[in-house]
């Protein structure tokens, strides 16, 4: 019999080459223009956020220096059109202090993205571990973790954040012995990470439950593979897809939560800028200096939008049932 893997070329037909799942995903992604743009934007924002501290050190952006000559009149409003826009201050200046809004938005982006990304990582790790254990163990352990998930999901996250903030941040500050910025960020990462893991755990548990019945798991089990090997070598490669997708979908939610906290006065303390505190202040000037709200608001919108679109696009690209060849 002829070798079944060899395909004879006949009448100029092209041999079909096998493709790995990642190659299929990449092909789908590159075809989807909207998602590619979103990916580019997300990478751009992440790079911007990461380089902000360096830019501040180098003096390229300056979120802290007040320019009292750039504001004036009753209310210390920005001098110049659109909230004091100029070449030196492309997004205008802040009423009352004259601080550069462009610099503050970038610095705020750093804080927002660090907090959001770390919280997502924490949620993903915790959620994956618990989801896998719960899915594979079954029985009483599964029942227990499912109830824990239900319990945590029904907790009002924002209320807890507000109620616990002062006490926990004070304690963290005493332990870390720094100013309040780092403890505030740690607090938000811990709380958002803690309230985010059930979301992952549920989804991954579902995936694991369906994978568990597959033949390759049965085969691995019967060959005597250890638990660890099953988790990491057999199951995990099939779980990357949902982990990745839901991470990118939770990112914008975390960014928005951090902004909401800043808006409510909890969270990062001044003079460190954060999206929430900037938007909080700008809302009061809605009628007298709308540019002060528009610039940070649009920036936040674009950041959240790009992560949302990226997540959607990834989900479509990774979906094995989509046959868009």
């Amino acid at each position: 019999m002829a070798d079944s893997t060899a395909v004879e070329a006949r009448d100029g037909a092209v041999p079909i080459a096998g493709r790995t799942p990642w190659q299929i995903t990449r092909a789908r992604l590159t075809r989807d223009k909207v998602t590619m743009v979103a990916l580019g934007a997300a990478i751009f924002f992440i790079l911007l956020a990461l380089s902000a501290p360096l830019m501040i050190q180098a003096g390229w952006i300056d979120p802290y220096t007040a320019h009292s000559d750039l504001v004036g009149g009753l209310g210390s409003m920005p001098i110049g059109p659109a909230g004091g826009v100029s070449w030196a201050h492309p997004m205008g200046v802040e009423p009352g202090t004259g601080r550069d809004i462009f610099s503050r938005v970038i610095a705020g982006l750093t804080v927002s993205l660090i907090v959001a990304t770390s919280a997502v990582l924490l949620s993903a790790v915790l959620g994956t571990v618990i989801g896998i254990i719960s899915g594979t163990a079954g029985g009483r352990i599964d029942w227990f973790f499912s109830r824990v998930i239900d319990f945590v999901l029904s907790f009002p996250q924002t209320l807890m954040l507000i109620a616990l903030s002062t006490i926990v941040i004070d304690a963290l500050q005493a332990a870390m012995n720094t100013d309040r910025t780092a403890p505030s960020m740690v607090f938000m990462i811990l709380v958002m990470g803690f309230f985010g893991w059930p979301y992952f755990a549920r989804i991954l548990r579902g995936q694991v439950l369906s994978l568990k019945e597959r033949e390759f798991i049965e085969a691995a089990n019967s060959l005597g593979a250890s638990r660890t090997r099953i988790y990491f070598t057999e199951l995990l490669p099939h779980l990357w897809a949902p982990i990745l997708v839901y991470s990118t979908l939770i990112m914008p939610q975390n960014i928005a939560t951090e902004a909401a906290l800043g808006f409510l006065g909890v969270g990062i303390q001044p003079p460190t800028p954060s999206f929430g505190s900037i938007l909080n202040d700008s809302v009061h000037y809605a009628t007298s200096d709308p540019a002060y709200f528009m610039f940070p608001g649009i920036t936040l919108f674009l950041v959240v939008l790009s992560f949302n679109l990226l997540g959607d696009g990834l989900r479509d690209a990774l979906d094995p049932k989509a046959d868009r060849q």
Partner: protein
Amino acid sequence: MKRVKIVAGVATTLALGLALSACGGGGTGTGTTSAAPGGATGAGGTLYILSGTATEHWDPQRVYVGVNIEAGNRLFTRTLTTFGPVSKDGDQSTLVADAATDTGTASADGKTWKFTLKDGLKWQDGKPVTCEDFKYGISRTFAVDVITGGPNYAIQYLDIPKNADGSSKYAGPYKKTGQDLYDKAVMCDGNTITFKMAKPSGDFNMALTMTAFGAFREDQDQGDKSNFAIFSDGPYMLDGEWTTNKGGTFVRNPNWDPATDTTIRKAYPDKIVWDESLTQETLYERLIANQGDDQNAITFDQAPVTALANVATAEGRYSNVASPYTRYLTPNFKSKVFSNDKAREALALSTDRSAYVTAAGGDQVVKATNSLINPALPAFPNTPLLAGDKGDPAKAKAVLESAGLTLPVKINVAYRKNDTLDKVFAGLKTGWDAAGFQTNLIGIPAEQYYSTLQSPDSASKYDLYWAGWGADFPSASTVIPQLLDSRSQISAGGPGQDYGYFANDAFNAEIDKTAAITDGTAREKAWGQLDTEAVTKYYAVIPLINDQFLFVHGSNVDGAVVNTTFTGYYDLATASVKH
């Protein structure tokens, strides 16, 4: 006074505006019903009061907030004396008789004061206001467990012995412990009321302008439940109930006799609607827009920073006057950093007040100062700024280096969190950090702010506090001892109003010496000197700015004049609406 406490004595009379005061000025009431002055064309209409701040108390002995002192006195709580209305924003007003026949007679040694009540004073149910009603009202201040929130001048001034822990031996009219002691200090003889002072007190008749010295009917007293159960002896009474965060309506009190109130309350509007369901920003938008009923509206709320840019469009309808408030910093004498004299000096030298002024909205909103005492008071010493408007970080750094502390010196600074102060302190931080400090800003929410400062554990957490104070009445004896006399303020329960635990025996001795000076002018001057000493010699406080008030009123409102001597708000005594 604390952040919102204003100069005492609020007479609530609604008078017609300047334009109409010429004609029919104040009716010659015959003591019958309907208090509308006959013939005055301004009588009538409904005045609206828009408020973004919930009223905490209307109970006269519990009122300590300027707005409620002004409204309470002018509408329904008459006092023995008060400060009369003025005709122009910012004019000085004089102490006049209100429920009494004159501003009182003091004995030669200043330890006894006598007042005679006017005839014809009536409560809203027609019963006469008696000397016993005043005596009872003042005694309620001593029930410190029930009647909370009000000023404690009665406890301080009257000659009633104190317990070892500083509390009065008289426990108020509910418990009646020590009632005989009170009866000896406040005596009624027909219409004459006599007060015995613990110390010679030349300005007692000014303290009487606070509603805490108003009359109260014993049979109407429900203790804590009387908080919003207004029972009036003034031109207006409450119609129905008062609802927190919504407000209430005031209608004419048919038993108020305008003949007993010729110099103060004009009482022109027929009705006053108080709406406290709004926010500062919304109500200012409405006042500036000036539509419909808002044309008949006034407010006691300050223009928020964010409305300032639009205020200019309300031509001829806004008042910009000095307020009685000073904002300042108190270093914590118990902290390691600020128990060091040179560290406090360095802080004072590097404080950038111009950043405060800009962040707050310009010098029409706040003005830099270096005195705790407000410029409106005769005692104002006008202490010159140590290092100019902007401070001198270089000079401060040199002083700090000589202090023997390792730079950068970490300091925890507490302030009341809001957007404006966030910006203010960002600016102050820049100046301090340039002088070698490492400033850590901690914004504390408004509801917990002063209680946090007054809690004993805060002494170990913070190095510097922001605070505000305004004189309760135009004597600096309501400023210096209230903030800097460790003996009356500091106790096991906390620092009182001496948030920084400043305790200096020499300074306290000088306070006593000053309080004993009988000549009013000389006494006020001496208070001013103590103020300068506290700021420049001990660095016990760092005064920052004086608030300026900015108010807008509707176009139909007349006679809304800001009375800077008496609380600093629109005086309801003279306000009216065109109709």
